[in-house]
């Protein structure tokens, strides 16, 4: 039986994209960027935190409910100091970095390979930042920028640390300045060959991506070599602008050489650069090491830059489908807000996440969680504790960092310069995360986290179902337990037959009061292993079943 066909026949819909968009445009009531003024409760707070963080705990949602929408937005966007850098957790062979100290400025060694452990440290540390973040949007924004300014296959963790720290420190800052900084970032110079670009052989790689992927985007083909927003001439000319930059410090064993970029006038093209009519025939004269920044200013004079980045933000935080109405009602006013604020990201982002449109019921739940969201979110939502001892938590963080890899997403390793396909590849978008190869590790992960857990360095990482059920307002009532678990884990309420199904998992063939009796017995004798095990096994079955439901894959 094909449920999809049956359903389609039942409601008489065809599946054409055009019709879908028509309906979607017609359906929303609150589709503007105006501030949301509707009810503020668990549903709204949970929706905001699911999108702005890597999965909220019950406590975080309750805090957000209490603080209200504006208070929560303020908290999400609040400035905070950069995290302490990654350290050497356990490598006694590093001659330059004692255990517990950071390696980010320390040279490598001629005798010992230090790249491996430092790369693991960087990745574990990154996982730890996502796992431990409170009510803040910074880590989700950092990953957004990593997807936007994608780099991969950079093997020196000191480079990657510098790059990701740039993104993190500018995560809520000025977009124009960030483009300038990324343009001469040592990692980016290496990744897109900017470091090989000289006046005699300008390399177009970075110039092309700067236009196509990082700032203004490719418009419809308007003629040979003309993409509406820019032309091939602009790519060539901008490549000349960017000549002369190099990086140093890659894999260096010299303690006096830092990871940095530098400008060599002798490699720079000193002539005038003539842009096309798409940039009003602007001429960029020689400005030496300040020239790249001027070029970015010229590009940013085009308002299309604002629309382009707002569409990407929308696809990252709201939904992939941008129809004509969304373009007019959301993208355009958001872009105007960005321009009016001199390309400071925060006001436009706050407007989007505080808008009627964001809280429109149609935008609650249709995002398929990315693998990193899926993995990090599970640990966060269930408040799985980590040990305090350095070696142990770094090691565990690194192990869990790797969980998203078979699900086809790895931090510091997007598939190419365009980032992960889920955020640009039509028509599937988020659906590209889901296939036979990725579903198996997703369900294996949640099954194990719910039942036996993972053991690293003698610590077991496992959902503590007995503590979890204690957070429910009435843990003695199985209906309340399932309802409140559902509210924590799913973006939309379950149907009655699904709630019945879950109760059947918790209480196979039994009336509700038997839960009350068994849970009572356990609470009265919490040290009795038999009573505890009886309740715990049932709860594990329940949580495993809940995490297996497709609803859990949605945010």
């Amino acid at each position, binding site marked *: 039986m*094909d449920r999809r066909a049956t359903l389609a026949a039942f409601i008489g819909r065809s599946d054409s994209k055009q019709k879908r968009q028509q309906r979607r445009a017609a359906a929303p009531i609150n589709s503007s960027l105006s501030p949301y003024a509707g009810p503020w409760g668990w549903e709204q707070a949970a929706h905001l935190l699911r999108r702005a963080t890597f999965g909220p705990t019950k406590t975080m949602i309750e805090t957000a409910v209490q603080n209200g929408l504006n208070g929560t937005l303020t908290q999400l966007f609040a400035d905070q100091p950069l995290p302490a850098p990654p350290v050497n957790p356990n490598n006694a062979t590093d001659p330059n970095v004692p255990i517990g100290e950071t390696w980010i400025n320390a040279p490598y060694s001629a005798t010992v390979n230090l790249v491996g452990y430092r790369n693991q440290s960087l990745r574990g540390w990154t996982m730890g930042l996502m796992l431990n973040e409170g009510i803040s949007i910074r880590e989700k924004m950092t990953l957004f920028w990593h997807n936007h300014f994608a780099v991969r296959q950079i093997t020196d963790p000191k480079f990657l640390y510098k790059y990701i720290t740039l993104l993190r420190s500018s995560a809520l800052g000025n977009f124009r300045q960030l483009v300038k900084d990324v343009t001469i970032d040592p990692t980016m110079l290496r990744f897109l060959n900017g470091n090989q670009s000289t006046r005699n052989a300008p390399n177009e790689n970075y110039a092309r991506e700067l236009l196509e992927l990082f700032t203004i985007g490719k418009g419809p083909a308007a003629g040979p070599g003309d993409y509406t927003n820019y032309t091939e001439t602009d790519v060539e000319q901008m490549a000349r602008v960017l000549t002369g930059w190099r990086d140093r410090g890659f894999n260096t064993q010299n303690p006096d050489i830092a990871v940095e970029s530098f400008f060599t006038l002798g490699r720079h093209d000193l002539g005038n650069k003539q842009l096309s009519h798409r940039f009003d025939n602007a001429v960029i004269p020689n400005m030496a090491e300040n020239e790249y920044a001027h070029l970015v200013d010229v590009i940013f004079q085009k308002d299309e830059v604002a629309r382009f980045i707002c569409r990407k933000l929308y696809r990252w935080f709201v939904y992939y489908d941008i129809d004509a109405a969304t373009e007019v009602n959301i993208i355009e006013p958001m872009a105007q807000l960005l321009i009016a604020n001199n390309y400071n990201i925060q006001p436009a982002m706050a407007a989007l996440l505080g808008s009627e449109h964001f809280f429109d019921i149609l935008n609650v739940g249709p995002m398929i969680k990315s693998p990193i969201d899926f993995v990090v979110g599970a640990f966060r939502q269930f408040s799985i504790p980590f040990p305090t001892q350095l070696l142990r938590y770094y090691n565990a963080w690194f192990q869990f960092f790797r969980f998203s890899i078979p699900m086809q997403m790895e931090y510091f390793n997007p598939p190419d310069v365009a980032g992960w396909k889920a955020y640009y590849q039509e028509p599937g978008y988020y659906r590209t995360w889901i296939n036979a190869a990725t579903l198996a590790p997703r369900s294996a992960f949640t099954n194990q986290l719910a039942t036996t857990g993972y053991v690293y360095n003698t610590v077991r990482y496992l959902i503590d179902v007995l503590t979890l059920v204690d957070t429910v307002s009435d843990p003695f009532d199985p209906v309340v337990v399932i309802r409140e678990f559902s509210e924590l884990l799913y973006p939309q309420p*379950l149907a009655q037959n699904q709630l019945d199904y879950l109760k059947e998992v918790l209480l196979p063939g039994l009336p509700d009061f038997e839960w009350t009796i068994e849970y009572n017995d356990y609470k009265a004798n919490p040290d009795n292993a038999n009573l505890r095990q009886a309740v715990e096994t049932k709860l594990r079955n329940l949580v495993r079943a809940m995490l297996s439901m497709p609803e859990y894959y949605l945010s």
Partner: protein
Amino acid sequence: MMKRRHFLKATGTAVAIPILLNGTRLGAMPRSALFNALNDESDRVLVLIQLNGGNDGLNMVLPVDQYDNLANVRSNILIPQDTILPMTGVTGLHPVMTGVKSLYDDARLAVVQSVGYPNQNRSHFRSTDIWTSGSPADEVWNTGWMGRYFDGLYPDYPEGYPNASHPHPFAITMGNLVSETCQGPATNFSLTLENPFTIGQIPSGQGSNAPDNPYGRELEFLRTAIAQSNAYAGAISEVVNAGSSMATYPQGRLAEQLQNVARLISGGLQTKIYVVSLGGFDTHANQAIEGAPTTGEHAELLRNLSDAMTAFQQDLQLLGLDRRVISMTFSEFGRRIRSNASNGTDHGTAAPLLLFGTCVNPQILGDNPEIGPNVSVDEGVPMQHDFRDVYGSILMDWFEVPEADVRAYLYQDFTHLPILTPCETTTSVSGEESLEIAMNVFPNPVSQQATIAFNSAGARARLSIFDAMGNEVQVIFDQRLNAGEHTLTWDASRLPAGIYFCRLLLNGRQQVRRVVKAGR
């Protein structure tokens, strides 16, 4: 395909000490010699019917010879004596179970009396875990009894499965349950059909209609993707379409599940274990309707069970599959002997278990429970047969597991029970020299010491005392005995006053006597 025995665990603990009796007993004969006339072992199927909630065995299989004492303590729910369907002179069935009665008359039913385990736990959750894991009551085991069996055969599962030799799931659980029975050390060997991950294969009530909006569309996409990603989905869909069912089934969830099982088997699915279930046996109130005790919730459940069992067996016979399939009911516990004031019964101890199929040894195994004249409030039916002996006998006789492995999977004290028979004949081949154990306990009531007398053919005997709650409180004797009549002294002086059961395990047979300990 590799032979099963190559996978056998090299366990140092499982030393087989076959209990050789008088040489002719079924239980002592080599399994393979007895059963190799059957189809290849991979063709054999076990269907487990889980009765969730704790079935009141006393109203299902009635000890007619105890009727007067039952009437003293459960008159508000007791089946009127003249409506009981007689099986033997002393045992009968609930009047709605005409189907089960016909299975018995056709020599396709075995009743195993008073199945339980020492130190009964009356928690639904915990006792279900004990029944599905096959653990002792005081140990928590995280694997199921069939899961350990499968793990012995296929230790790499699920890595590399399905494959050409094993294209189908080893076990299938119908409905919503997670089958702990098939939980292995690493993964569950059972595929649950009709859960959120499996849509469109078998009629399913799962999942709401996805709304026609962005959320609903992504949800629908996920459901379809997940269903299609199930490694076994394709094979099962094929088999369901190829399969057939020839009998008329009654309405109801259990019947529907069993009919789907028949379809899957007839379609060629090589699955060995099916778990189906019927819930609602937790009959604390309104088990029977006041004044009409043959009606009510329990009667409806038993009717469902009986009609579904009968239709399933008929279907298997019509499909020519009946020699490949045996089925067994189980429930986490029986209920109290004494009914409560709400026309119901509370959580108890042991209960009878039903096995049916053409290869089942048709009989009533064991004695009727003995109901005393003054039943205490807490008193359940005492255990006569250990449930692990039932499991182990199925593993040995049906799945040809060597006895040493059975002991390793279940417990060292495993005792074989003659519950299966070669299906070449429908007559019982018990071959059992009927030794009259003839246990006698006197005086009864006992105040300080009692004498326990019985006959032995010369084998290991275990004599122990259970309290009314099903706890094994005292082991009097556990060693080899010479043939002949024996008399032992039981010192009951340290036990509080109350109801006790004296259980003798001898020659693979069990006998239970009810004893009252008087106050000092």
